[in-house]
């Protein structure tokens, strides 16, 4: 009796042979213990492959928990950017720009923007008078003595006569979110680059 060759055994182990070859292999396996044992070895290999893929190893310097948290945050950010672009009536550039700017680049750019703007306004002129003399609020929430507010220029807060503001530099804010636990957030889409700037202030 001629045994199945190695490729046939490998494919028969999960029923991947086609048509007549499949029928012939099944018939052969009914009578041939040698080939059945070889099929069983391939089936064990399939379990080994599954465990090897599931138990992947990261480079030593990386921790899964940190990578997971970073990806989770970026996914949330990416979904928000998509929503903001939809609200602004634009096709999102996130996927299109994949080659040009990675997620890490996008996140870093967002963080840098926020830091620069915060620094300027904490030391800049007019911060204390913003809430009293600025344009009408589009979104506003009070948390204790603190008033948080968003308008077309950005978001800000005031507490007993002092305050700060995060001003949108590239474009007027097109979307506001207020949270009753004490935060206000404005999102602006730059019409030329499609870059989204999210400014948020919150009370702790």
């Amino acid at each position, binding site marked *: 009796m001629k045994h199945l060759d190695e490729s046939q055994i*490998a*494919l028969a182990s999960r029923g991947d042979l086609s048509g007549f070859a499949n029928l012939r292999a099944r018939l052969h396996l009914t009578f041939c213990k040698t080939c059945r044992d070889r099929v069983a070895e391939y089936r064990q*290999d399939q379990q080994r492959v599954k465990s090897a*893929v599931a138990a992947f190893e990261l480079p*030593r310097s990386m921790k899964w928990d940190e990578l997971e948290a970073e*990806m989770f945050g970026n*996914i949330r950010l990416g979904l928000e950017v998509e929503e903001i672009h939809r609200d602004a009536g634009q096709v999102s550039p996130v996927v299109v720009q994949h080659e040009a700017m990675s997620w890490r680049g996008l996140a870093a750019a967002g963080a840098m923007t926020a830091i620069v703007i915060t620094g300027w306004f904490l030391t800049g002129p007019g911060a204390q008078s913003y809430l009293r003399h600025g344009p009408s609020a589009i979104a506003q929430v009070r948390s204790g003595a603190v008033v948080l507010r968003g308008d077309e220029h950005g978001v800000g807060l005031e507490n007993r006569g002092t305050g700060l503001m995060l001003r949108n530099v590239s474009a007027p804010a097109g*979307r506001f*979110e207020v949270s*009753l636990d004490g935060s206000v957030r404005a999102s602006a889409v730059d019409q030329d680059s499609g870059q989204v700037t999210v400014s948020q202030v919150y009370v702790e």
Partner: protein
Amino acid sequence: MSTSSVPNSSPSAAERELQDRFVRENLRRVFALIYRIVGNVADAQDLTQDTFIKALQRKDQLKDGDKSAQWLGRVASNTAIDFLRRKARVNFTEIDSLPEPLPDPSERRADEEMLRAEEAAYLDHCLEALSVRERTALVLRDVEDLPASEVAAILGCSPATVRSHIANARTKFRAIYEQRKEAQ
């Protein structure tokens, strides 16, 4: 509780919770799948994120837990394979007998191997010894449990070609695994 000004397309709090749970439950599996296909952490991270963003924009696909996980696997595979195609790293439609240059396992794992179990390290070595097309076909068929016809559709090649990739992958994996047993 949060509210948003109009116009907006924000998910509700319940939808966001569902999204978060979906991501947490599937993140590691999707990352592992993509990592095995593209072979490096940075690309796998970007592609995993892209996969979830694409998937979560199709909320209708998230209603059935089991089906959505399987569907997510397909989105992940397609995303990784499209990436490899864009990078022109691999053509899944060709079968050739020449082995592709193998990644050097020692380059990435020299130190890691000291820390992990010998068996796991050797299984990694077996997988890395496969060509990209073999490994991808094997992972989609034997890990993701996609039928061969669907693997062929994802890889953009004929069912006969994909069966050849799968057979080569399994026999090569077996041969390398056996070498170790003989060496012991």
